Each structure stands twice: as structure tokens, then as C-alpha cells.
């Protein structure tokens, strides 16, 4: 595949922006968490693109994939914890609306 690296990065940028928009726009907590996953994926694409750019056949740049692995692990962790919190919240307030989570206000 000879797609120029810029295109991969543009894709990552678009996905990231969509994730950010979803984070602010959606009022369902679970969808917000999904937007976060989207953002993380965009980051992963960036890493892979960079690894691809900097590798040669004889000398592979492996930092990219390794970091992507870690990101995936973190994403999993974060999704798990976030969803557990959502469940706990739902038990209290019977809702998953973002506006319900403001007890820490002034």
C-alpha cells in the first residue's frame, strides 16, 4: 500500500474530531464513553502511520505497534471502569444522562 502518510493522518484527525464532537454533543453517558474510544482509535492510527513512515524493510520501527498495544490495553481498562461507574450511577439515579452527574458542583 502506497498511501501517503498524510492521508492516514488526515483520517486520524477526522476520526478524532468526530470523537470530540460526540463527547460534547451526546447526552447519553455511554455514547460519551464510546466517543472516547473513537478518539483513542484515532490516536492508534496515528501511531501506526508513524511506525509505517519510519520503518524500512531491514530496520522496523516497532515503537508504534508497541505503543498501540498499550493504548488498546488502556482503552479496555478505561472502558471497563467507566461502564462500572455508569452502572453504579444508574442504580442511584435511574438515568444515564450527562446532566445528572453534577453533584461535585459548587
Amino acid at each position, binding site marked *: 500500500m502506497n498511501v501517503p502518510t498524510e492521508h492516514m493522518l488526515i483520517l486520524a484527525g477526522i476520526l478524532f474530531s468526530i470523537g470530540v464532537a460526540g463527547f460534547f454533543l451526546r447526552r447519553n453517558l*455511554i455514547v460519551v464513553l464510546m466517543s472516547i474510544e473513537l478518539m483513542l482509535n484515532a490516536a492508534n492510527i496515528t501511531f501506526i502511520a508513524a511506525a509505517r513512515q519510519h520503518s524500512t524493510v531491514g530496520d522496523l520501527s516497532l515503537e508504534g505497534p508497541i505503543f498501540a498495544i498499550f493504548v488498546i490495553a488502556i482503552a479496555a481498562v478505561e472502558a471497563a471502569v467507566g461502564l462500572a461507574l455508569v452502572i453504579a450511577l444508574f442504580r442511584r439515579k435511574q438515568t444515564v444522562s450527562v446532566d445528572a452527574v453534577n453533584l461535585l458542583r459548587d
Partner: protein
Amino acid sequence: MADFLFYVAALVAVLTALGVVALKNPVMSVTSLLGCFFSVSMIYLLAGFQFIAAIQIMVYAGAIMVLFLFVVMLLNLGTDEMTDQVEQHIGKGARAKAGIGVALAMLVLSLVAALSTRFDGVDPGLAENGNDPVPALAGEMFTRYSLPFEAASVLLLATAVGVMVLAKRHRSPRPASGANRETGGAA
């Protein structure tokens, strides 16, 4: 050919991502995200990173999305009543507008960054074989990156414990509140 496939996959990814944000039904959002992950995995494959592509499917699509789906189903968010409960699924206030503004800014920034960087060409031989051979990855992972590796494993352990604590239902009888009954959402 591979290039063409890339653009198709990219398009699908964007569309499904938009679907996540725009679709009203949370279940549909989850499914859309699933589709996004598949297309991203395809892109990894096209770029020659087979292992990462596999991991993407296994972990993201196979575990994380399943988890999301579980929770959505658990909380019965897919039914029409529940969906309507969260009225105005898209916030309309100033916050939302600011959010769109931020998203657009980020989009513009990333586009500018991507386009203004001068990249040398990618080595053509890369796309053939695995660009992330597992032995090499493992070698790096267990030597140079052993510390983050161990830290990540500790993190996973902590998460497992934490999630269990967080989602635990308090079985201790609470005299005053009658809210914790077997109704909706009980595990």
C-alpha cells in the same frame, strides 16, 4: 488495489464514526462503532501490521464492544421508552456549541499539521510481510518496555478489582431508603 481498499475502509470508518455520534438509539451507536473498529482493523492490515489488526479485532471489537453492548442491554437503553427518556439526545446549549467549535478547531489543526509536514516516501517493501513480527515485538516488549508492560498488567489487575467494587450491589439492608429493590437494573 490496496490503495483503493484503504480509501474505502477510510470512508467506512468515517461514516460509522458519524453514526456513533448521530444515531439516537444507543444500540445502533454501539453497532456503528463496531463497524468503525472493523474498518480500522482493515486499515492496519493493509498497512502490513497484522498483529495489531488482530489485536484490534480481538480486544476492541471482541471485548470492549461486547462490554458496551452488555451494559446497554443491561440498562435496557435500547427500548423506545428508555431512548425517549434521554430527551434531546443532542445537547443544544452553549456548551454544545462550544464543543462543536472545539471539535472543528481540532479538525482544522490536525489537517493543517498533516498537510504541512513534509514526509519522505514510505518504503514500498513494507506492505508485503508483517511489519510487526511477533517475535520482534515480544523481544522489545519484554526487554526495553518491560516496565510499562508490568505497569499495564498491574493496572489491569487494579481495574478488575475496582470494577468489581464499583459495580457491586450493596446488599446491606438500608432501613430508610426503599430505592434499592429488584426493579430495573438489578444484576
